[in-house]
């Protein structure tokens, strides 16, 4: 790799020198602001108000974005920002999953704020370089790299014309270029997108870390919501941070001993129970593929079904064999869960890198389900190839899976045909067509350009241009608020329908994942129970994003005595661990109740931000019927016994002599009414009006009655 040649083509646009700081109890108390339109670089103080009300991470991101945009701002306006922030716990090395960055921007898919939680070393190294957050605004004329040297206190904006755009190449080039030598490569972290993000709305960001054993970069993804598309629209080729000298005490925590002991207790738990529980260290999140299939939850053929006879071909056992075992696969130091699995020496069969042997970061469960079963693809190598190209091209695997499944169903229903797709026979299970589609999305070519806009835009186009039946298209297009559903089949779990639908940023599983509690364990039978879960869990899970944490170590392993505790679903001992490490770092004295209130402040703020952008009300919380029940006769018949039984038991409806269509209509009325009742209960529990607007009383109670915020709310009550 001739990085000297690439580097010599760089043109320095701006250089900024800053004083190296010292972190105090998890905060540097500074933000780095970069404007790409005029190359302005400056420091901004992190205020006490920000720390009190927003904590850090996505809280900081949402606050900066709120102040940067107006209700009229679009994703590709220069004033839109990309904010990257860790949080007070980001960068601790003792507790698993503590190196996360939270990325916030106005989304091209949803036209409102989105936040995405991502691993890799950028967040921690940014903080050790002196900044709690990086705020990027404006648009560059030509491709630029923003380089932060955290050891010399230098920020540079450099024009960078020659480097690759696709992340697996660009990440290596920049790691090589900015590291002093091989040993220094671990001190470099790169944020980049890929060629697809230049054409599609589903662009993601890759965050790198250097894998000292593989001697290669690894990529973790801020996948959801199209932030990579914003990044390339701003003509940012990459962000690079360099910081040498990571130690376990750089956050200057108030109580290092408690931090160490709490971390060690968790590491020991992983050591003792992971092999018996979830096998996160062997196969990562892919461990649940066959479990989802077994419980009829694995999205199959665009969420029509929840299982498939061929699932065994893509089971966790298959991927366990493909993943290189025994590597230290944490995406930040100290992650004993180590779920960042990789397949080494994978030979690509298609596309511009055909024949090359690459590292595939994954597959995670979502990829196997989205790229696999949901598209009717049960070939593990095809899933890995799609996974690789999604990452390097910067396409969100979840959105790609869900939109390709949608395209396939449209193809099978005659809404699309070969003429419209440019010759691609996009039937369920056509691996070659799916792979060719991804390359066309990356090139922004023909139907690939349309597909890359996501399900919401495709629905509009198919109705307008192809005369598609709007009712059918809206029933089967698995998006809400513009974001594609993640990969769980929620049809048979009302609580998970709420978990997807009653969310801030659209249907993802960051906020609530209640399928097991609801369906498998039947722990939340009443509306009130479900509403309580749809209050507590989204708030609890929001907290990870305020602090720079990963949520997986919370419940992907449980202590031995968990089932004997008063609230096993909450994993009380782990909740206490988080209270303990938060207090240990920041010197605060919060308890588990204040933890929830910290989240509530930001959660309600985000809801009001959505409302300010013209979304975020009851009408926006509706979900497509495919998420609630059988849209087609084929789906009804596949579960006829269950549906007939429910009609009889729950509605006292005599199914004898009724046509399937009649039964479907009755079931639909019932299920839609259930969702409305759930919505009522959840809004009530969250302290919102029946239109989904947080009340002024609620804001006052939370201490979140900031004048700007109250002003927005008053317009909608």
């Amino acid at each position, binding site marked *: 790799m001739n990085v000297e040649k690439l580097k010599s083509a760089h043109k320095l646009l701006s250089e900024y020198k800053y004083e190296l700081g010292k972190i105090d109890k998890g905060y540097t108390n500074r933000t780095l602001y970069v404007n790409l339109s005029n190359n302005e670089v400056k420091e901004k103080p992190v205020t006490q108000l920000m720390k009190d009300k927003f904590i850090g991470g996505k809280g900081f991101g949402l606050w900066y974005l709120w102040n940067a945009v107006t209700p009229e701002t679009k994703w590709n306006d220069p004033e839109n920002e990309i904010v990257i922030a860790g949080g007070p716990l980001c960068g601790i*090395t*003792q507790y698993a999953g503590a190196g996360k960055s939270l990325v916030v921007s106005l989304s091209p898919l949803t036209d409102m704020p989105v936040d995405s939680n991502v691993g890799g070393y950028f967040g921690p190294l940014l903080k050790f370089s002196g900044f709690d957050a990086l705020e990027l605004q404006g648009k560059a004329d030509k491709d630029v790299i923003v380089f932060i040297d955290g050891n010399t206190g230098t920020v540079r904006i450099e024009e960078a014309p020659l480097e690759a755009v696709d992340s697996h190449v660009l990440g290596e080039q920049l790691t090589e270029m900015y590291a002093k030598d091989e040993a220094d490569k*671990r001190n470099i972290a790169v944020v980049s997108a890929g060629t697809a993000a230049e054409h599609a709305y589903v662009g993601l960001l890759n965050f790198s870390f250097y894998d*000292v*054993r593989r001697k290669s970069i690894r990529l973790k993804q801020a996948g959801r919501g199209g932030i990579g598309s914003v990044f390339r629209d701003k003509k940012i080729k990459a962000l690079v941070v360099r910081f040498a000298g*990571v*130690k*376990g*005490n750089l956050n200057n925590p108030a109580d*290092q*001993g408690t931090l*160490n*002991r709490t*971390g*060690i*207790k*968790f*590491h*020991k*738990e*992983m*050591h003792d129970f992971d092999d018996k529980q979830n096998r996160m260290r062997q196969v990562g999140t892919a461990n649940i593929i066959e479990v989802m299939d077994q419980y009829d939850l694995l999205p199959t053929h665009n969420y029509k079904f929840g299982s498939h006879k061929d699932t065994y071909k893509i089971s966790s056992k298959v991927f366990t064999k493909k993943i290189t075992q*025994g590597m*230290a696969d*944490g995406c930040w*130091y*100290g*992650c*004993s869960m180590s779920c960042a699995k990789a397949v080494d020496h994978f030979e690509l069969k298609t596309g511009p890198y055909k024949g090359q042997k690459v590292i595939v970061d994954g597959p995670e469960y979502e990829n196997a389900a989205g790229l696999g079963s949901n598209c009717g693809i049960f070939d593990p190598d095809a899933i890995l190839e799609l996974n690789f190209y999604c990452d390097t091209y910067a396409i969100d695997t979840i959105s790609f899976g869900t939109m390709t499944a949608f395209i396939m169903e449209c193809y099978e229903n005659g809404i699309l045909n070969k003429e419209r797709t440019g010759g691609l026979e996009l039937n369920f299970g056509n691996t070659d067509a799916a792979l060719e589609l991804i390359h066309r999305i990356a090139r922004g070519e023909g139907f690939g350009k349309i597909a890359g806009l996501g399900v919401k835009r495709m629905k509009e186009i198919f109705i307008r241009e192809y005369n598609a039946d709007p009712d059918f298209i809206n029933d089967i297009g698995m998006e809400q608020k513009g974001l594609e559903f993640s990969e769980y089949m929620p049809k048979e779990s009302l609580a998970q329908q709420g978990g997807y639908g009653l969310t801030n940023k659209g249907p993802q599983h960051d906020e609530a994942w209640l399928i097991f509690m609801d369906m498998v364990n039947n722990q939340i039978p009443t509306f009130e129970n479900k509403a309580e879960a749809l209050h507590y869990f989204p708030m609890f899970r929001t907290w990870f994003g305020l602090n720079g944490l990963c949520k997986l170590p919370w419940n992907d392993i449980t202590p031995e005595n968990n089932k004997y505790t008063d609230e096993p679903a909450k994993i009380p001992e782990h909740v206490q661990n988080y209270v303990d490490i938060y207090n240990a770092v920041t010197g605060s004295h919060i308890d588990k109740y204040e933890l929830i209130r910290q989240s509530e402040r930001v959660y309600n703020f985000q809801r009001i931000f959505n409302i300010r952008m013209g979304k975020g009300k009851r009408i926006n919380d509706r979900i497509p019927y495919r998420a609630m029940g059988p849209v087609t006769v084929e789906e009804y018949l596949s579960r006829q016994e269950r549906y007939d039984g429910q009609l009889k038991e729950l509605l006292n409806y005599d199914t004898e002599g009724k046509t399937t269509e009649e039964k479907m209509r009755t079931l639909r009325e019932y299920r839609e009414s259930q969702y409305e009742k759930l919505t009522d209960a959840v809004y009530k529990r969250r302290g919102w009006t029946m239109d989904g607007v947080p009340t002024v009383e609620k804001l006052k109670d939370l201490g979140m009655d900031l004048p700007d915020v109250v002003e927005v709310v008053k317009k909608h009550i």
Partner: protein
Amino acid sequence: MKVLSKKPELCIQCHACESTCSSTWFKEDNALKSCIRISGNEKGDAVITSCTQCGECIDICPVEAITRDKNGIVRINKSICVGCFMCVGYCPELAMFMHDEYIEPFKCIACGQCAKNCPTGAIFIEQE
């Protein structure tokens, strides 16, 4: 390979080894800073905990700060260590230690000082 071997049945739990170890390495008589620990089981019999140089921690370390030296001793390079303490949680012998005052873990490197001060020969350096 040199290791610190043990015969717990000879141990009289005098804790001289802990004093020697912590004094040698941390200049302080403090059992919590010792790389060898003496405790009793339910029956009151002595349990001696110290590193067997098995090396499981080598693969656990995310930064390759733990390596085996040419004499077979598993050593921690403190300048590379990032203080994650995964090695402490993953040690099958529970013989990797943390003390609040230090940001790196510590372990027995079979220096043999404790064995010299053991009055009963319950611990001794052995070539494996």
